[in-house]
């Protein structure tokens, strides 16, 4: 199967749900007209990132009236976008939904909420406790939000459980301006390369641009292909929408040539965790 994915490297307005929904609708319509079957937005794309106490006001459930236009649009194009989810437990989560065929098909709650230095997510948001693995018309799909991508154990586990398409909405601020690329870009490229090269997954990494209180998000969204490497690479700092092609035959072909997953024996890991946890 071959299909087109749109990477929506947008600059959401912090705390302005109405503006951001319109931005998403316009982007999704543009992607649909360009022939994309799926569009992926950054982390917290519907709300903005540095919300602080706006978190309480802006949290919604994925089936809230404000997102109705997006759910309707998903009859034509599948949509992965970030929002503050109001859990049934009343807790706000840093989540991303996957909409398809007019319905909410999945909601992933960010597991690893960055809380150090410039980040303060745990101060305002609850932790997700589950890997997101769900079947879509694109194959077995997983979602990791920003920092989740930097946890190789979780990403490897998702691959072991059959994930072929990894969606990675992000809000990564620029830092490390000394070299030919930003220090954070190098870190991300290691994570993308690892997921595609060793685990044979397509990764759709979509990072936002713009500034929240001096934090400048660098963009640099990318499509990582197990066979072709980085096949789509968005510019730094610019709001753009780029299209990439996913040929799912690359997954089997790559996994045949470098059969890491075929070799994988999770019992080794399970045994180690069971026996050495307290040692």
């Amino acid at each position: 199967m071959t299909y087109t994915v749109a990477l929506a490297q947008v600059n959401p307005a912090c705390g302005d749900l109405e503006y951001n929904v319109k931005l998403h609708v316009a982007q999704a319509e543009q992607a649909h007209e360009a022939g994309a079957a799926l569009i992926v937005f950054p982390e917290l794309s519907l709300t903005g990132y540095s919300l602080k106490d706006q978190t309480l006001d802006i949290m919604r459930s994925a089936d809230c009236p404000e997102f109705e236009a997006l759910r309707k649009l998903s009859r034509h194009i599948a949509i992965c976008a970030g929002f503050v989810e109001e859990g049934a437990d009343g807790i706000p989560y840093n989540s991303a939904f996957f909409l398809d065929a007019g319905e909410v098909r999945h909601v992933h709650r960010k597991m690893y909420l960055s809380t150090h230095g410039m980040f303060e997510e745990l101060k305002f948001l609850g932790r997700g406790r589950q890997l997101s693995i769900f079947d879509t018309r694109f194959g077995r799909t997983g979602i990791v939000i920003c920092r989740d991508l930097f946890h190789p154990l979780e990403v490897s586990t998702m691959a072991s459980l059959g994930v072929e398409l990894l969606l990675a909405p992000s809000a990564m601020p620029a830092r490390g301006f000394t070299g030919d690329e930003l220090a954070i870009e190098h870190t991300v490229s290691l994570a993308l390369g690892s997921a595609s090269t060793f685990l044979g997954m397509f990764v759709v990494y979509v990072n936002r641009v713009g500034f929240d209180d001096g934090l400048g998000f660098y963009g640099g969204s990318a499509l990582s292909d197990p066979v072709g490497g980085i096949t789509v690479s968005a510019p730094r700092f610019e709001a753009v929408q780029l299209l990439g092609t996913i040929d799912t035959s690359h997954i089997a072909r790559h996994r045949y040539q470098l059969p890491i997953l075929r070799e994988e024996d999770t019992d080794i890991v399970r045994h180690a965790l069971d026996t050495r946890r307290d040692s």
Partner: protein
Amino acid sequence: MTVDALALNNAFVYDFLKRFVQEELYTSGFTEACIALSGGLDSALVLKLAVDALGVSHVHAIFLPCKASSEESRRDAHTMVEFCGIPWHELDISAMADAYLAVQPGMDRLRTGNLLARLRMAVIFDQSKNENALVVGTSNKSELLVGYSTWYGDMACALMPIGDLYKTQVRSLARHLGLPQQVIAKPPSADLWAGQTDEGEIGVSYETLDQILYLLVDQRCSPAEIVSEGFGLDLVRQIERKILTSQFKRVAPPVAKLSQRTVGTDFLYPRDWRR
């Protein structure tokens, strides 16, 4: 350890800071910027960034001399204004300062310097209201860290584009952008009295200061580790002390907490709060 550890990719930094100026202004609903020009390098660089970010007709720069200001300062400020293609504006603050100095005889140089910095602040904020502009600050990371700046004086502004650049990085970016050599090469000075220089006041060259600050702040090295890089212990301790004693300038004043939600403590919203 050499200053090379502080080398930045100036093309990235320039692009990033231009976008920062643009977006921080536009997000706050402004299109105009006001900058107090001193004739020094920091305000020269900020002027260039603002003009490139916003366009020449949206940047309002004013030279605010007093009696003590040197002719070189006027000349260099003028050179920058010509370099950027914006009109020259000058407002002498001597009469304002003299009115106060006349009723406060015997003010020492520090008090006078702070007074002049705060008069300039009052003028630039008034001008910004007149122009419907935001005041763009010119503080750099070196002076913010050691507190070589006047609280609510030159530190007062709406945004600080070069606040995370050490002075040596400011020079490097200025060279990258082709700013006039006379502005880049001059000894940094607050220009409050004849012959005053930052380095004379702080007691160390910016090259040395920045390397020690980089090791202390960015690399979180201990004084012993910094001494092993070839720096004197007394100097390292002195710089550490300057950072500690100027901390109050870098934070908002503490509010005595009484209620459930207190401004600054748990009434937490981003500056870019738009609803």
